[in-house]
């Protein structure tokens, strides 16, 4: 199996390289020098590096196959004896055929290939240290060997490794050697002799003499030597920068890696040289965690003479071209404590930055990545939730809910308090694609909406795309909510337990193998609402009923190597609610998927296959004769792949596709019990294959402009028809400077899967439908524009986004429609067109003890019957969609008294949702009946709620086994009796308002982390 995977990987690499060279080839990038194999990457758990000196690439030139290549970024792999080159910081390193490299210059130092020159048989490259006769050469060999040194922090490996891991047994041993060349012969000398020779050369000035320009003649060894930079190769750096304890600036005047671990220090990078003032220097480095693992996607924001922002690569490395000067560099990533380093850049150099995990933080600050993102890419409507912020926010019953936390974002509204669905920019809840580790979750709520199905302890990221026109995630018209769980910890086993009023949960993670390449993460959550129901008052209609749910997660992550990994995910959730012995509602999600991912500087792609299932079961009856069960199911098999290729700096091409196979069991009714006289009935299952292909292109001609575009072709082959719909999206960014950005976007969307409902909120047993010859795909378009501004040194982010979208063939249910077990469901539906528009304003304070955001959204969403089946709601006039809530104000804040203690609060005010209410009454068959207004002609009262929470964070001790996190909070502090819905009773003709939480709801939540 392993061989097959490896073979597939190699084939894929070759195909992609061939494809990219044919389709997207650029002469400079794909010239002969760069036609080698992609440089090897090494596992994270090996101490030291395989490289000659640093991880960083340095500029230089290469004589390759008789041709001189300038402006090449070079690194030397001393373990393989290979030269690694690339022509831009974004490009993946390539190993050109070393037998065709006669010499190269790297950062001024000259390296020669003696074998190429016909001198001896020793492979590899030698650095020329002097132009004397005899010439002094220097070579480094790194040998992968085993053995660890827990007491001396890796002194035995021969050089300083800032990421030295005491538990790793493999390391790259440093083996320097010195050589003399004279009279056509090369002789190895020992270190002492080399030192003497060096001293002599220094005395007579030949070692540091001014260089004569060297003009090598191919196949001839140089007659005059070019001295290298006087790199102090024999010196090592201590583990702590000098002056750390004294508080004075630390100056590291060497071109060696700096291990930047401490804040408020000044690190000096590189050596000051003449004529460097305005030249481009290369600042490179690595971002690592406490285990020395490279951290990808860390946002790096450079302030100073020049400003730029970018993310760390998959292995944690980064590279930037800067001029000399002072800079402040911010490193921030989700779940990590932000690090801020001040440097003085005097020459090219590199450094490694250690970021701590948030739970054992020494410092804390909010992520400002969103700000950087918004100035960096052309996407509109993308919101990334900061999980640390969310964990602080008040939550009903203390049940942290990442999915519901999206409601704190502008443009996202709840269908109803504690209901399952959300409305994004006026769309219906079925127009949101909810992905969990790439799997589709069809009903993301427990207990009809009290809780969502995602265990908050295992979640790594929550992204919401408020524009549905995302080629990669197509298939829904309004939004994509992409939720991902963490990979398990590869170093040690750890876990956590959470105790809440309704549920308890735990998770456990850790390595599965000794090699620490494979890790697992399991999580489980269960309710004890059965226990609560049994304690309800006697008069409660639910006393004696049962309600329970659970969910389980499994994730296995296997790191094949630094660039490739396999992920296996499994998920299941189940809910059961039985108000009495005859009636039950049961619904389950089950998902499984396998992902293969490749990430490197140049290319990233992922492929996945999986299964998503959602099944419901209703048991109901008034008596034993009418007792029945109804089962429905949505089954989805999928395979999808995406690839992104960095063509050069600022130009990325992507593509991909997916094939979805749906099998919808529309319903199976069966009698239950021996007495039941219910006739079995099966609604014919529906199936469809929905393939799609897309290509995308992102092009940034300069730092100010980015243009993104994608074209997608999707289809649906169902039982009686075939659809083929092209979609496109184009967006653009123009940044006035690093703080102000304009964006515009236009995209079309299509959706082949529909959910129809006629209840107030989204029900777990609502019917899913596939497009067929009668139910047509939902199609539409959306355009949006936005202005983003960062102020006061990124402390504040201001944004304004406006959108307008139109959709056709959104299906609304007729009054009194029977949606379950209906063979002729189409006759119960009314096709509508939807128009929605709005403006979203947001001000976010990113830093300081008081941080948070304020948002205000003005939006409208209207529907109008189409004439597909000649049935018109509201006499064919425009009417308000249930999601139409014109005004929505949100204030979310955190105030940190200390790093551990703080308060959080949420204030939400929004318009009530539209309802249909009685305008009159009439007598009919002996009773008062209500005459209802035009559809959705009125609104329930406006909504206002304030929540507050006092948070006690985890302790700072890294050695403590247990860390407790306690939240004491109150939901709806003001006790406002917000209307969930209003309704009328026919006999009394009185209006009533149902309020779910009509009083303050205090809670305590405890979470225990096991480190």
């Amino acid at each position, binding site marked *: 199996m392993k061989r097959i995977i490896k073979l597939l990987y190699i084939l894929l690499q070759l195909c992609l390289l061939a494809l990219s060279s044919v389709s997207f080839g650029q002469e400079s990038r794909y010239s002969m020098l760069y036609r080698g194999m992609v440089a090897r990457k090494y596992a994270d758990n090996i101490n030291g590096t395989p490289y000659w000196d640093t991880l960083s690439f340095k500029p230089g030139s290469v004589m390759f196959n008789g041709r001189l290549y300038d402006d090449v970024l070079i690194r030397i792999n001393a373990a393989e004896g290979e030269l690694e080159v690339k022509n831009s910081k974004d490009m993946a390193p390539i190993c050109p055929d070393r037998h065709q490299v006669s010499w190269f210059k790297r950062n001024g130092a000259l390296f020669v290939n003696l074998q190429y020159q016909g001198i001896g048989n020793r492979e590899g490259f030698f650095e020329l240290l002097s132009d004397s006769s005899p010439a002094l050469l220097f070579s480094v060999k790194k040998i992968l060997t085993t053995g660890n040194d827990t007491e001396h922090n890796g002194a035995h490996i021969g050089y300083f490794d800032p990421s030295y891991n005491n538990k790793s047994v493999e390391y790259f041993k440093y083996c320097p050697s010195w050589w003399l060349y004279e009279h056509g012969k090369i002789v190895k000398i020992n270190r002492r002799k080399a030192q003497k020779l060096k001293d002599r050369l220094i005395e007579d000035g030949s070692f540091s003499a001014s260089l004569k320009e060297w003009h090598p003649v191919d196949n001839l060894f140089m007659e005059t030597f070019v001295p290298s930079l006087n790199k102090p190769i024999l010196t090592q750096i201590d583990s702590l920068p000098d002056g750390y304890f004294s508080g004075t600036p630390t100056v590291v005047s060497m071109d060696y890696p700096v291990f930047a671990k401490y804040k408020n220090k000044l690190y000096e990078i590189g050596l000051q040289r003449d004529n460097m003032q305005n030249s481009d220097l290369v600042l490179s480095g690595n971002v690592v965690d406490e285990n020395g693992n490279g951290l990808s996607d860390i946002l790096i924001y450079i302030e100073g003479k020049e400003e730029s922002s970018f993310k760390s690569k998959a292995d944690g490395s980064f590279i930037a071209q800067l001029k000399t000067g002072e800079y402040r560099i911010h490193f921030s990533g989700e779940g990590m404590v932000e690090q801020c380093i001040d440097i003085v850049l005097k020459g090219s150099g590199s450094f490694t930055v250690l970021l701590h995990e948030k739970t054992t933080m020494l410092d804390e600050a909010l992520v400002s990545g969103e700000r950087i993102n918004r100035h960096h890419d052309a996407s509109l409507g993308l919101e990334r939730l900061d999980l640390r912020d969310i964990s602080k926010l008040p939550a009903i019953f203390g049940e942290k809910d990442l999915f519901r936390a999206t409601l704190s974002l502008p443009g996202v509204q709840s269908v*109803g308090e504690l*209901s399952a669905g959300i409305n994004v920019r006026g769309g219906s809840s079925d127009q949101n694609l909810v992905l969990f580790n790439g799997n589709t979750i069809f009903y993301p709520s427990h207990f*009809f909406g009290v809780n969502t199905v995602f265990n908050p302890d295992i979640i790594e990221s929550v992204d919401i795309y408020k524009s549905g026109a995302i080629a990669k995630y197509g298939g829904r018209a309004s939004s994509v909510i992409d939720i991902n769980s963490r990979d398990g910890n590869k170093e040690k086993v750890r876990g956590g337990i959470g105790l809440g009023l309704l549920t308890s949960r735990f998770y456990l993670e850790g390595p599965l193998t000794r090699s620490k390449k494979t890790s697992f993460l399991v999580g489980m959550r269960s309710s004890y609402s059965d226990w609560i129901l049994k304690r309800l*008052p006697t008069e409660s209609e639910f006393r004696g009923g049962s309600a329970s749910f659970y969910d389980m997660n499994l994730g296995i992550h296997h790191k094949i190597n630094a660039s490739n990994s396999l992920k296996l995910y499994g998920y299941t959730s189940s809910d059961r609610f039985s108000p009495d012995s005859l009636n039950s509602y049961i619904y389950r999600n089950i998902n499984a998927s396998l992902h293969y991912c490749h990430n490197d500087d140049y290319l990233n792609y992922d492929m996945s296959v999986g299964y998503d299932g959602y099944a419901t079961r209703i048991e109901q009856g*008034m*008596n034993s*004769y*009418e007792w029945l069960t109804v089962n429905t199911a949505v089954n989805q098999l999928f395979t999808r792949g995406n690839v992104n290729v960095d063509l050069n700096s600022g130009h990325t091409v992507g593509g991909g596709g997916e094939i979805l196979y749906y099998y919808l069991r529309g319903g199976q009714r069966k009698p239950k019990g021996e007495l039941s*006289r*219910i*006739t079995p*009935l099966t609604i014919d299952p529906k199936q469809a294959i929905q393939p799609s292909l897309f290509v995308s292109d992102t092009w940034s001609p300069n730092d100010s402009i980015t243009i993104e575009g994608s074209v997608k072709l999707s289809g649906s082959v169902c039982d009686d028809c075939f659809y083929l719909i092209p979609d496109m999206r184009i967006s653009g960014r123009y940044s006035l400077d690093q703080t102000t950005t304009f964006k515009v976007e236009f995209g079309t969307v299509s959706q082949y899967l529909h959910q129809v409902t*006629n*209840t*107030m*909120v989204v029900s777990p047993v609502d019917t899913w439908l596939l497009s067929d010859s009668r139910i047509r795909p939902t199609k539409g378009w959306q355009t949006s524009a936005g202005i983003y501004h960062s102020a006061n040194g990124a402390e504040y982010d201001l944004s304004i986004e406006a959108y307008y979208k139109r959709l056709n063939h959104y299906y609304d249910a*007729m*009054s*009194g429609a029977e949606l379950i*077990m209906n063979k002729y469901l189409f006759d119960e539906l009314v096709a509508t067109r939807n128009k929605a528009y709005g403006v979203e304003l947001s001000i976010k304070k990113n830093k300081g003890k008081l941080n948070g955001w304020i948002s205000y959204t003005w939006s409208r969403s209207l529907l109008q019957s189409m004439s597909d089946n000649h049935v*018109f*709601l509201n*006499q064919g006039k425009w009417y308000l969609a249930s999601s139409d809530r014109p005004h929505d104000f949100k204030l979310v804040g955190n105030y940190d008294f200390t790093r551990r203690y703080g308060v959080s609060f949420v204030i939400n005010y929004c318009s009530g949702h539209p309802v*249909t*209410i*009685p*305008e*009159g*009454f*009439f*007598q*009919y*068959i*002996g*009773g*008062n*009946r*209500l*005459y*209802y207004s035009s*559809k959705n002609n*009125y609104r329930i*009262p406006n909504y206002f709620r304030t929540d507050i929470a006092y948070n006690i964070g985890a302790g700072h001790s890294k050695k403590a086994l247990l860390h407790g996190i306690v939240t004491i909070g109150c939901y709806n502090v003001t006790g406002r*009796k917000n209307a*969930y*819905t*209003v*309704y*009328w*009773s*026919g006999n009394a003709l009185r*209006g*009533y*308002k*149902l*309020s*779910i939480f*009509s*009083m303050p*709801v205090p809670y305590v939540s405890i979470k225990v982390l096991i480190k």
Partner: protein
Amino acid sequence: MTVSCVYDFNADLPLGADLPFVIEGDIILGERSPFNISVVNSVAAGVKKDYKASFFVEDETGKIYPSTTDGFSDRATIDMSTALQDVKYRLRIDIKHEDKSISHYASSWLSPEPEVSVSYRDSSIYRIVPGTAGTKELVSKRYYLDISSPGSSGCYCWEYELLIKIPATLSEPTYDFDPISGILVHRGYGWWGKSVCWSVSQPAISTVFSAKAMINQELKDHYGFSIQGYDYLRASKIKLKVRAIPEGAFRFLSTINKNSDNTGSVFSPVPGEAMGNIYNIDNPSELAVGYVSVYKQKETLILDADIPNNFHPVDGYVKNPLEGMTEGESELQRFQMFYEKGYRPYDSPTRWVPERCINCEMLMRGSSVYPDGW
């Protein structure tokens, strides 16, 4: 801890909205079919216009079945005793305002629904009377129905009539009218006459049920209705009426039931338009509220008891100083006046005979609930 609650809610409704006509009634083959027409009462405005309407039924052969009376002033009745089973019918309504014809409504053409066959069983629920040595008391009588109708839509509708013959005697007091205080001064009782008060009780809502999911679309031992033990023991007649109805009628009736019985629960269906089958001929998109069905109704007499007229004196009279009273006015006339105007006496040292129990024979109607203390 229960945190959810229900509160009163008043909506701000616009005034003066034009609301549709309501047409109630079915074409019942073999019987006199009653029809009502009214206008939806506006919650906000409550303005009623003076309409008149004439009804008639026509069949596809062109035969006309006229109504006897004006639909707005009283219930219109159309004699369908000679109607045939296998032709289509439709109801026609002409509406006039100030003697001008303003609109013409008609139902769609309808085929008669097949007749149903009905049987029932009952069960009695008793309780032990507290403080007695096992004395049982009837709490309620429940009726379970078997209904079938081959060839029908499988949708059924039933209702029952409960006739309670409550013996009562209204004792007319003698009194003097005090012009200074403006009140009637009770002088004692006198025997004026004896009346029997009948209370006719029936459920406010006809029950509808779809048996489409059942074997042969038959209802088997389906719970139909129940009668309180107190009523059952005084009942003189219980009559069950069952018919098959079209699926559209089932949906219409279900919708208006759901609209009126919304419990406000999380998964309550959203109230909406009840789509009837009566439309304005001049503007077919303008629908009246109502659904006309054609069927032959099955009546089953569940109980037919002969209850004698046992007269019991009732201490009931009225004092209403606000209204005053003219000399010679009988108490029954007073009751009738109160009943029709909906007035209530106040601060009365004597018992008020509620409007629900007036001389039913005199007023030609009964009431749906029994009087307090009876």
